[in-house]
């Protein structure tokens, strides 16, 4: 129970600090040409990535944490 409390506190602190830092990010729309390029997408080809994950998941005991579409450019 105590360990869970520590975990929850650490998680809350990380999220709080992260959200504050996120607000400090000042990438302007005209600066997003690289971020908007397909080469900077976390999931550039979602269908192909899903099939590859499907094959790998069936050979491992783990699951989850897969990437989601988008590259931080606000253009999806």
């Amino acid at each position, binding site marked *: 129970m105590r360990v*869970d409390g520590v*975990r*929850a506190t650490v*998680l809350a602190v990380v999220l709080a600090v*992260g959200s504050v830092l*996120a*607000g400090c*990010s*000042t*990438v*302007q*729309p005209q*600066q*997003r*040409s*690289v*971020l908007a390029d*397909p*080469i*900077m997408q*976390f999931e*550039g*080809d979602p*269908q*192909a990535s*899903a*099939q*590859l994950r*499907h*094959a*790998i998941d*069936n*050979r*491992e*005991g*783990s*699951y*989850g*944490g*897969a*990437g*989601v579409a*988008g*590259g*931080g*450019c*606000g*253009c*999806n």
Partner: protein
Amino acid sequence: MRLQLSSLVRVLIGRGHRRNASARVAGAVGFCLASALSSIGPFVPAAHAQVVQVDTAHTFYHEAPTRTNMTVYTPGVDVAATPAEWITVRGGYEADVVSGASVATKAGPAYQSVNPGVDVITTASVNDLRHSPRGGFTLRKGDVAYTASYTYGTENDYRSHSLFIGARTDAYDHNTQLEISYARNFDSVCDRVQAVNDTPPRFRALEDSSGCFSDDALRRRRPLSIDGFQASWTQAWTPTFATQLVYTAQILDGFQSNPYRSIIVAQGLKAQEHHPEVRVRQALALRFNWYLRPIKVALRVTGRVYRDTWDITSGTGELEAERYLLEGLRVSARGRFYRQTGALFWSDDYTGGDLPLGPKGQYFTGDRELSPFWSLGLGLRATYMIHPTPKPEGGRSRLLGIFTHAKLGASADAIQFDYDEYTLAGIPITNARAYILGATAGAAF
């Protein structure tokens, strides 16, 4: 709202009350999404986009480790139409064409040592075809998008109904993207009817899939429910650097064994594989995507940690580098390292022997994916985006007079698995190597 969210956090972090965890996650996530949906009001049609996107992907998987082999061909096609900017409707189909031979009876070195000269490992041919149609829609209003979809899966011995809902929004001048989603599976697994007074150590494995999902008195359906929750935070920090944090939780409740596989659990006693019914899984992944201007390479680094209530802990590290070779043609090279511990009830031989062999409680498995192992994967991918040549007189140009753009892709991956303990009656698996080929094509018009 606060009460519901605190319940969710307790469930996701804690390990207690597993039977109720599924309902709690479903309730909390459903409440959050319902609250979000109710806040947006009616969708207002915007300017018509009139775009249809067609994508097809094909994956070919093959491995042939000691005494077994497996080949899986997975074709898929998706069509998405955006009649107006506020809505996208999509439908798709995917299949798995499976053939090969898998282990039907698993024994370990201790049993083999007292039964010399007897080949106790048996294999069975596997031929199956999974059909999986799917459909869904996305609604958008401003910086918020809501997605709902349904996927059906059917094969000889498995049925699946899967519902998905998700919400996504942008914040801080589009430098931040937040996404949450919830998925619920209502699955059924075909199993053999067991004798009334038998207990798991005397259960017999399913012989084949004949009679499954029919009125056959020798077959029964075993339910499996799966609740999945995911939250992600994607952040652009500089014009060339972005990160993504993804958290996934999944609760499985129901039949999770391979009904066809038998384990030798004692001298002269062979039983159907027997796994716990509840499994809670959590994963946290952090990705970095950094464009290195001097060498024009995008570098992606991923770290993932995973933990579940079957006591499997794993770590994954991935590195991928991608760059343009020509205009529209980009290539990438990737490497992946994976390491996991074994499940609490994993043993290579339940009949005994020196540690780590021997019985591990009331459960027994012959699943190598539940044993401790590591794997190393290497892969290459090429993607070619084709855009029409602009018309000299201006106006919208199209490929072949139809498509606004098209995309072709090809990939090849090889993965080497190294099992610490898993053997076939004492014979280690030394050539567990998987080859995965992929091809994709897509076009918009």
